[in-house]
């Protein structure tokens, strides 16, 4: 059996990526959902997963100072280029938000009082939802997102798909255009790019298209709230045409999307124009599987 993987990504946050993912999760007959927006996950609000398995995630390293061993020489403060070590009244203190975990202080410390420690940065879960398994994660507040946790989420989702003979994984991708977004896309079979007709929407779309091209993955574009700025929408459509990227659909700005979100339900359970268009997009996408 082959598992088909679809990623839904957007560049800028707040463009309706999760709204679309949640609807697709109901429209697909059999699927494993993977929420790769580990920084501010939202998909679980609609899918209401019940956790079956918990896994710990150890992420970034930070310097930790053993006050007992510290000889107060201040070498660590001198070598730290991130202003993460400061003398505070009677001792040296590490600002863990500023520390980038480079280890310069641990190498320079003559008393071996500093160490890099990998800390528990979050958890990821295997859960069940009404219509299939879901893998999701949560980073601890103020931990930095990396491709690492996303890779774990995707690996687990794929494993579950093979183990339960489910031929489809739908990935709600990480926002942005950096490493987390890349990690959500790599080795998928199809990428859905969700954009909106704003100044920053098109800019981000171009960037994410480059990344998808690098991985040689087929893609299509959905314009959300397309009617709030017809001329920007046209600009996006022209861009897609020039770049030979398929236009999968245009979702109107619709009151019912807000109602659905408020009630923590997928839009496709509502009878409205946005819902119709989402269904049409899904039909189009599922014909590619």
């Amino acid at each position, binding site marked *: 059996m*082959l598992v088909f993987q679809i990623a839904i990504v957007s560049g800028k946050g707040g463009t309706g990526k999760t709204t679309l993912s949640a609807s697709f999760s109901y429209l697909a007959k059999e699927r494993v959902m993977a929420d790769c927006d580990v920084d501010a996950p939202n998909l679980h609000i609609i899918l209401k997963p019940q956790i079956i398995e918990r896994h710990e995630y150890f992420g970034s390293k930070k310097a930790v100072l053993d006050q007992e061993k510290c000889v107060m020489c201040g070498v660590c403060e001198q070598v730290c280029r991130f202003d993460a070590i400061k003398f505070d009244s009677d001792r040296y203190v590490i600002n863990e938000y500023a520390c980038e975990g480079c280890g310069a202080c641990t190498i320079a410390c003559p008393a071996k009082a500093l160490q890099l420690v990998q800390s528990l940065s979050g958890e990821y879960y295997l859960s069940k939802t009404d219509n299939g398994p879901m893998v999701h994660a949560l980073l601890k507040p103020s931990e930095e997102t*990396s*491709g*690492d946790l996303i890779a774990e989420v995707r690996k687990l989702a794929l494993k579950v798909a093979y183990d339960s003979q489910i031929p489809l994984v739908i990935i709600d991708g990480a926002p942005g255009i950096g490493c987390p977004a890349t990690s959500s896309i*790599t080795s998928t079979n199809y990428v859905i790019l969700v954009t909106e007709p704003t100044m920053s929407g098109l800019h981000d779309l171009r960037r994410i298209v480059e990344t998808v091209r*690098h991985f040689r993955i087929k893609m299509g574009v959905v314009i959300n709230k397309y009617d709030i700025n017809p001329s920007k929408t046209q600009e996006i459509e022209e861009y897609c045409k020039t770049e030979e990227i398929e236009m999968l659909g245009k979702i109107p700005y619709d009151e019912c999307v807000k109602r659905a979100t408020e009630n923590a339900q997928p839009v496709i359970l509502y009878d409205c124009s946005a819902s119709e268009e989402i269904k049409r997009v899904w039909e189009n996408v599922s014909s590619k599987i």
Partner: protein
Amino acid sequence: MKIMLATDSPSLESKISDRFARTSYFLIYNLENGNFDVIDNSSIGSHGAGPKAVQIAMDNDVSAIISAIPGETAMEAVRESKIKVYDGRGLSAKDAIGKFKSGELKEI
């Protein structure tokens, strides 16, 4: 001549992983005698997985890598290292080695 395969589990029956740098295992396979070593890649860490994986390939003196498509930074490292990468998606490690020998794999 040695080749490196990015796999999901530590055996020749394993699938080639969907990920290059963040694969669970690397198999270092010796084409002359059919022996292989396993490298556990599960604690690759959060930074620079791509170059780290290429470093593993160089440290083990492999001439080719069979994997999914590497990311942009990893690809840069691969190009510089002159190691060739072949697309092994969808194959088992064993089949990938067979196809590599007969020249059927596509270079990335």
